[in-house]
């Protein structure tokens, strides 16, 4: 059984449907990449998994338990499911260390000293230990996004959602962020990510899902999706990506 399951998930803003019956399974230690045009529903899907948006149909299950709909404990769900955003969203009034330790201290009740020790260990891992006392506006985009990843990891999530985390970065800063994701995937973290980095998806993903207008049009191993896409829309999408020199 899959660790994270989305079964026929439907979501609309007012009368505008965004997700029209998404079914997607992520096994433990798997990396699933969502690809598709902007506005196809990738980000909304991730926000629904984290309960930042509620859904109108279907259900989402984590480790067999339903985690969508009324009456769920969103705060305990979010302890298990971390998310990193396209625009970093670090807290500008806090140092890097405070950003990372805020929720371990305030949500998990970890003693400050332990939280800081863990934070420094994680920051060392992404090469930012010496920036612990810096404020976000003193960091480059790539550094900010690495801190945002560390902030999510500090909660020891069982699943990490990555929402186009390199889209807001200057091209030369993309690699430093992707290297960390590659590292986390190798460590066996379960990752569901929306991305425009096709070569990265081909290299790291176990499964690639092509989302089109709120549905999963096609999914499978990256070799199949990128090598021999079945659906004509997938073919058209990938053709454009190749024309743009992104694959």
């Amino acid at each position, binding site marked *: 059984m899959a660790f994270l399951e989305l079964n026929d998930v439907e979501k609309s803003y007012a009368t505008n449907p965004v997700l029209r019956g998404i079914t997607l399974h992520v096994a433990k230690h798997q990396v699933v990449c969502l690809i598709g045009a902007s506005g196809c529903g990738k980000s909304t899907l991730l926000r629904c998994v984290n309960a930042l948006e509620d859904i109108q149909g279907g259900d989402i299950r984590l480790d067999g338990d339903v985690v969508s709909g009324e009456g769920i404990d969103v705060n305990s769900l979010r302890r298990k499911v971390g998310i990193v955003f396209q625009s970093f969203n670090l807290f500008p009034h806090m140092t890097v260390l405070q950003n990372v330790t*805020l929720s371990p201290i305030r949500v998990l009740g970890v003693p400050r000293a332990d939280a800081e020790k863990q934070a420094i260990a994680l920051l060392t891992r992404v090469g930012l230990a010496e920036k612990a006392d810096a404020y976000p506006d003193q960091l480059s985009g790539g550094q900010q996004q690495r801190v945002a990843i560390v902030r999510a990891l500090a909660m020891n999530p069982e699943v990490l959602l990555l929402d186009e985390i390199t889209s807001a970065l200057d091209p030369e800063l993309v690699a430093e962020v992707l290297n960390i994701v590659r590292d986390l995937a190798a460590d066996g973290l379960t990752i569901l990510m929306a991305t425009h980095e096709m070569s990265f998806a081909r290299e790291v993903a176990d499964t690639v899902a092509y989302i089109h207008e709120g549905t999963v049009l096609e999914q499978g191993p990256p070799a199949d999706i990128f090598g021999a896409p079945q659906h004509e829309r997938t073919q058209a999408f990938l053709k454009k990506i190749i024309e743009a020199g992104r694959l």
Partner: protein
Amino acid sequence: MTLKTPPVARPLGVAQPSPVGTARTLLLAGVLLCLLTVGMTGFAAYLTITVAETGVWKTALGAATLVVVVLALLTARPLISGFRQQVASTTAAEAGDLVSARKFRARAAQSGWTALGSCLPLMFIATFTMFLLANDHAVQTTFFDAQFMAQSVGDVTVAFGENIKIALLAEAFVLVWALVIALARLAPSKAGRPLRWLATAYVDVFRAIPSIIVIYLVGFGLPLAGVPILSEMGPMWSAVLALTLTYGAYVAEVYRAGIEGIHWSQVSAARSLGLSYGKTMRHVIVPQAVRKVTPPLLNDFIGLQKDTALVTIIGTVDAFTQAKMYSSNYFNLSSVTVVAILFIIITIPQTRFVDRLLERDARRQLSKG
């Protein structure tokens, strides 16, 4: 392939250089205004020295007006250099050097404007001095009687301590109370709706009532109604309560604007880390909002400090009450001027501080691009 069409002939007018023009009229206006200023300041100085009463004022004002006369004479300097530039401009124009001619003409005009700009404030000072000395310096003795000011300044300053005490206490309460109201106005979900209504009603009502009315109603009304505890507060605490109620409503709106101004992605980020709504507000949103609203909040506090003078109507012995006692005994308002000066002394540093904060924020916005 070569172009066959012949080049279009340029219209004649374009080839001619733009005219040099002259700054003569401007400089002449400058001369007239300069002469007028020197005359006015000279007359004001003469009046001060001959008419004003003897003693401190005579020396101080006399010296001050003489400085003004000197300044008025100094406005001739840019005029002289302006005329020199104008002559240079004319010479250059006659020699056919139009570029230099325009340059010197521009400098001459600049000098003329500088002279005009310096004359205006000096004329204002001269007029004000003559106003003070009008009717055998009646205005000066009514508002600025040095001896009487010196006599009252001690008691008025002591009483001003009461204004400062009321202001500081009210400000401390307002900081907390307004945040409570702001958070109530933003209470989430259906359950929070009655709370939102209540807070909105409070803000609407207390922003509508003039603070002098609130002070009057609280200071006299509560004791009259014999409300337990509240009626025994005394005028000082009544004033603190009334000002907290009024300014709480204003500052609540300032806080609300600040909280709503924080981008929703900050809420997403905090909630996604498992922080509850309350913890998100407390650790992420409110600290950022407070930083953002510090300048408008301080502006409201300056207003509050000035409104402490209104407590005179409920018999609190503040600086204004004390000054009025002096002025009614001596039929002279100089003691009230002392109060005004005290308010100026405490307020100006704060307004400058707010300006600096605003500048800093503007710079930050720019640097973020």
